[in-house]
């Protein structure tokens, strides 16, 4: 049977991906350019018995999402940079309390209100370091409407598997662009549900590290009663200031990501095998970069594209290898220099690392990227 096909906007594809993953709760607040995600889910969630709530503000939306997730419902919110800034408080809460949830950031330009209808890629460092305190982060950066669908599913999977917030960042260009989407059949994409506890309610500890790096999370309203707090806590969930317990818990929460990079990582490479110059690009910029690679090859320059789909944790190993292989890595981004610093760190001086930035609301075009490549070679 032929697959269901549709012409969908990136934001609509995101909502459809959430439904495919079994999402049952959306809490949000209207903000350009992400609003279509909310609009589609307000139509579709009640049809599958899910809940949609428009909260009083971005912080309240994040709070409702975490509260809903604690009852066992797969939960999502969608916003843009200004909203993510407001949500940081509770993104940190979801990190320390280890509550699965998905946060969509359809990136616009500029700091503050910036350019609400223009694209940007300037929230990529915020995705890692936006909330205070030490924590791990997972951020995915799809580059097409189809990929927004599949990466939204993967975001839920990672959130549920690693018991943490997962951010999906795509820029306004991909969010508002329409492309042909092939709907995967049910069962075609893996859908992961969080692990339920196997111990008796009396023996349940929500942060019991003897159950592995990611202890099972019970649902509120089941047989399990337990305590959740944003304070540093012991394995039973109650606050502690005991140095050894705080240290062990903080390290476990960071290491559950760092020790599983191979499972979380996802990259695409295009003509990198013999490349002298690597264009390291993500999101809509990677589309211009791919075009630039083809054009440069026509001119006899051996260019290749490295495209991270998982941006955080950072693709350290492969970036380092490419730095040894290539003469230069060019990092085009719709910002004034963010991921380029991570690339520089990973390259350890083994090749030239150059940045090509743009923040005027227009996408980076292939010509611009090609000019930069020629400049550094």
């Amino acid at each position: 049977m032929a697959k269901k096909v549709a012409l969908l906007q990136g934001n609509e594809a995101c909502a459809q991906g959430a439904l495919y993953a079994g999402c049952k709760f959306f809490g949000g607040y209207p903000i350009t350019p992400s609003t279509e995600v909310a609009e589609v889910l307000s139509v579709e969630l009640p049809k599958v018995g899910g809940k949609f709530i428009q909260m009083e503000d971005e912080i309240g939306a994040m709070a409702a999402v975490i509260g809903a997730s604690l009852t066992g419902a797969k939960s999502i919110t969608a916003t843009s940079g200004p909203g993510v800034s407001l949500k940081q408080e509770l993104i940190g809460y979801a990190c320390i309390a280890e509550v699965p949830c998905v946060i969509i950031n359809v990136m616009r330009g500029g700091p503050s209100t910036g350019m609400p209808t223009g694209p940007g890629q300037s929230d990529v460092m915020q995705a890692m370091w936006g909330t205070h305190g030490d924590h791990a982060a997972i951020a995915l950066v799809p580059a097409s409407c189809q990929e927004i669908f599949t990466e939204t599913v993967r975001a839920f999977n990672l959130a549920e598997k690693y018991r943490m917030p997962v951010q999906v960042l795509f820029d306004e260009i991909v969010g508002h662009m329409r492309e042909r989407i092939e709907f995967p059949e049910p069962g075609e994409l893996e859908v992961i549900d969080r692990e339920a506890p196997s111990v008796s309610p009396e023996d349940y500890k929500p942060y019991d590290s003897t159950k592995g790096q990611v202890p099972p999370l019970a649902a509120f309203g089941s047989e399990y009663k337990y305590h959740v707090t944003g304070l540093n806590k012991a394995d039973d969930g109650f606050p502690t200031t005991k140095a050894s317990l705080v240290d062990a818990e903080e390290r476990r929460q960071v290491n559950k990501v760092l020790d599983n990079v191979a499972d979380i990582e996802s990259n695409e490479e295009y003509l990198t095998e013999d490349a002298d110059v690597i264009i390291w690009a993500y999101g809509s910029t990677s589309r211009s970069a791919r075009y630039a690679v083809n054009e440069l090859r026509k001119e006899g320059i051996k260019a290749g594209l490295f495209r991270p789909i998982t941006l955080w944790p950072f693709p350290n190993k492969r970036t380092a290898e490419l730095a040894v292989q290539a003469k230069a890595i060019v990092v085009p981004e719709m910002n004034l220099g963010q991921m380029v610093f991570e690339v520089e760190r990973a390259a350890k001086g083994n090749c030239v690392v150059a940045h090509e930035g743009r923040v005027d609301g227009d996408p980076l075009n292939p010509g611009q990227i090609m000019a930069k490549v020629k400049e550094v070679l």
Partner: protein
Amino acid sequence: MAYDYDKSIRPGKLPHIWCPGCGHGIVMKGLIRAMDTCELDRKNTAIVSGIGCASRLPGYLDACTLHTAHGRGAAFATGVKMAKPEMTVICCGGDGDGTAIGGNHFIHACRRNIDMTYVLMNNFIYGMTGGQFSPCTPTGAIASTTPYGNPDQVFDISKLAIGAGATFVARTTAAHPREIDKLIAQGIKHKGMSIIEVLDDCPTTYGRRNKFRSVIDMMKHLKANSVSVKAAPKMTAEQLEGKFLTGVLFEDTEKPEYCEQYANVIKKAQSA
């Protein structure tokens, strides 16, 4: 005779963190009695709070307890209730948590008329941070950040809740323990947003700065200045000056409850 609180308290959690004479413990006992009156299955009860002294309450109680971020209790609780309407949801916290940093969540939870019971312990001060003035600190009072007397005007929390759309609003004080559990139980049974404001004492950071020689003075002050809503109509404006009304201040059983409204949304969506 002696009330069995022990079965509701998590083993090994007492003594609690509150200062000698702090009324929060009296309120917690009232909440336990109310939960017993309503025969709440603790597995199916979520107790949600923000940050502050009063927000430490959930940690002591054997239930699904959620100690969140400053002011966010009502918003987290909204998510819990929406996702699982069959759960009983109780919110608790203090005056600063609920009406300053959490003011927006508070009024909108009232507006939606979502079925939860919010026990707001109003002790007129930010206690945990050492006694800074809150939206409920009386004008002229001394706090650590109003050394010359508080220039701010005061929130009347119950009026705020009524204005925002809560459908059961009641007030009592820590000096009226039997009324605490009676009103909370009524709130739990009420279908919709219930606000129970309990005027409370903070001897450590409020009392000692404001000419209360002891916690006893504060308790007597709460008792002496309370007027039941039933007695108030017989009193003159002069007699009511500076007094706080206690009892059920507002009740509306007609306004639809939020989760029921959303259940209708689901019905419409599924029949479309």
